[in-house]
């Protein structure tokens, strides 16, 4: 079967930044995403322990390349200074490209 090339954006961030990320996605008309709670260590210390509000979360979004630049620009501009955020992009193949506009 033919696979179409799209981008997978993965954002690992503190759980209280999750809403901001999803708001940014919604602003760019992206409604589909997957999140899960994670733990880890990074520049801001061991994260994911203790209080519920201090947990970490991973947000995965598949989108077309055209939208990607705007989305990551806005995430970087609004969240990088104040929140614990790690962001990376990978190439993935999907079967039904019309689902990820």
């Amino acid at each position, binding site marked *: 079967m033919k696979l179409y090339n799209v981008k997978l954006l993965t954002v690992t961030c*503190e759980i*209280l*930044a999750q809403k901001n990320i999803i708001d940014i996605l919604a602003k760019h008309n992206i409604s589909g995403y997957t999140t899960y709670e994670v733990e880890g260590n990074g520049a801001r210390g061991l994260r994911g*322990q*203790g*209080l*519920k*509000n*201090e947990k970490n979360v991973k947000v995965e979004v598949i989108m077309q390349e055209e939208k990607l630049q705007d989305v990551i620009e806005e995430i970087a501009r609004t969240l990088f200074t104040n*929140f614990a955020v790690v962001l990376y992009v990978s190439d993935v193949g999907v079967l039904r490209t019309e689902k990820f506009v």
Partner: protein
Amino acid sequence: MDILGLIQSNLLTPIVLFFIFGIIAARIKSDLKIPDAISEFLPIYLLAAIGLHGGIEMRNTGFETMLVPMLVAIGLSLLFTLNHYQILRRLGKFNLFDSYALASTYGAVGAVTFSVGLSFLKNQGVTSEGFLAAVLAVLEPVAFILAIFLTNMAVSKQIKSKKESLGDISDSEIEMGISETKTNLKQVLHESITGKAIVILLGSIIIGYAIGEEGFSSISIVFDELFTGAIVIFLIEMGIIAGQRLDDIKKVGVFLIAFSIIMPTFNGIVGVLVATAIGLSLGGSVMFGLLLASASFIAAPAVLRHAIPQAKPSLYITSALGITFPYNIIVLLPIMFIVSSIVHDEGSIDLFNFISKGLI
């Protein structure tokens, strides 16, 4: 008046001992941990129990008695928040965002501290006014709303003056910025009022008011007898989290450490005195003082991280949970109890009995 004696006997209550146990468990790097679901459930349970009790008692006392204490509490909470800000900003040299975040954390109330206070009073055989549960619910968002409003004002002022000094004043942009902060405030208001703590608290007050004593008897085994036990379990978790943060306390600095001990003491004792002056009972005055002394560490990060993201959460969570909370439940509660006993002019005998009982 033997304050030390009361502190000592307070130290030997299960609540405090399990809290200290939790700290030790974290320090020796044990993998002891209360499962997530339970530590999320317990605050809801505690608030439901507080609300039910409050509601049932309000049915007996009516709403009118509540009005003055409620307004006084709101006034004091706002006043203290402004006072904290001035101290932190001028003496502590914290930046604007950290100052407002910390000021509101200490102006806000701690529901867990409130539960511990209720159980402390129960231990002493003293009751408190039920409407304080409603005061707890109302005070929860007050300090945050003030701090967020003032932060937004300060920020839009800064933007304005920067624009003016640059010479190109585009009004539309300024207005856009201001309208943005306005929606932000509205959002925060909505979020904090519909937040789970207030919703469960108000809901249980109404239900408690509706069912009264006779309705409560069928559920009292869960919401009355288990109350102190549930706090104990929750405080193991709080102890573990506080223990994990002990190293961070060094990072918050001497000034904030002193602030997180002196301010609650001052606020608490003022609270006890004011409450006595407006006619609250011995126990009620202690709880009123505790409301003003306590700092928020569960609700605060959720609200502040969105409203004032520039503020460092490590400062306000560590000082509220790592310093103020243990200080409040171990040292300040007995102090406020004694102050309240003195000003209510009836405590010396009770206290003597209590201490002699404690010694035997």
